[in-house]
């Protein structure tokens, strides 16, 4: 079974050519060339790259951010620490580091809804949200979030009361934002893990709301 997407099928007149050779795409060649030189010259350890790949593929994801939000919902002191120094409060939960050096947590209220974008280059709070979704990196989102945030929210199926103001936060290489969504109604009896399950990635970017516990139960 071939799992190489760049495997090229050649015409061998119906019989298998035993000595068929490999081929790498131009992009794969570029990545291999860069990595092998960086490893050889001691700038990068091959193991480091592998570890980072594994870390971001399997260990770091929006669940990290959901744990932060759920803790803030159940622990008022943590919530206050989170809003006054996001980086430090997140470190309490054993998260942080790359791409999250300066975390600012912006809290949604009935009056204010926060939306995060990076107009420059798709900066993203990796340690708490993992890797950015494709649309976050797209030019239409990056430009429209600033010009027409209410329209962008509508595209995501989020309709807010007219009285709710929308505040857009433009991330950059120094500052990363995370939205603290409003705790949904009807979630009073839930424990922290159950609450975390209501926190979607989009609710922490501001393109969504936390899930309704009733909707989740059905």
């Amino acid at each position, binding site marked *: 079974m071939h799992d*190489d997407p760049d495997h090229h099928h050649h015409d061998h007149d119906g019989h298998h050519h035993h000595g068929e050779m*490999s081929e790498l795409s131009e992009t794969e060649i570029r990545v291999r060339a*860069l990595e092998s030189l*960086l490893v050889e010259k001691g700038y990068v350890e091959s193991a480091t790259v592998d570890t980072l790949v594994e870390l971001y593929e399997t260990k770091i994801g929006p669940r990290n951010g959901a744990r932060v939000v759920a803790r803030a919902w159940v622990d008022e002191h943590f919530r206050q620490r989170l809003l006054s120094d996001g980086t430090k409060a997140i470190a309490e939960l054993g998260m942080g580091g790359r791409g999250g050096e300066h975390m600012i947590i912006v809290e949604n209220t009935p009056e204010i809804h926060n939306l995060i974008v990076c107009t420059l280059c798709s900066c993203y709070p990796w340690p708490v949200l993992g890797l950015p979704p494709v649309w976050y990196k797209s*030019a239409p989102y990056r430009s429209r979030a600033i010009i027409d945030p209410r329209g962008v929210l509508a595209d995501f199926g989020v309709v807010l009361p007219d009285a709710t103001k929308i505040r857009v936060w433009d991330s950059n290489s120094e500052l990363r934002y995370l939205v603290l969504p409003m705790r949904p109604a009807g979630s009073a009896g839930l424990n922290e*893990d159950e609450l975390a399950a209501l926190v979607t990635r989009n609710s922490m970017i501001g393109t969504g709301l936390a899930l309704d516990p009733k909707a989740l139960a059905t």
Partner: protein
Amino acid sequence: MIRQVDDALPLPHLPRDEDGPVFTAPWQAQAFAMAMALRDRGVFTWEEWGQRLNAEIAKAQAGGDPDHGDTYYRHWLAALEGLAIEKGTMGSGELADRRAAWDRAARATPHGQPIVLGAETGPAHD
């Protein structure tokens, strides 16, 4: 104090969203990780990285790339190559030679076997 919620909420192998996996090919993850590693080594700062990536994206847009997010890691790779050379970690000629070497190595490796540098210098046994 930190509970292992990871056990209660098993993550799929790749983080996915409505648009599919966040990485669509292994090379994207490698390019991502290399940028992290070089930044950790102090080869460049996040600010330099952001500027470079932005410049690559702007260049691609000027060249007609609709920039819907699917070409993002191409821009990422171009920024990485550019900064790696600019910061003196390698020469551009050296990089070009190395690409050619990988291409030769692949073509000298029977399909399904791991491709290693130097494979083209000896006969392909096995």
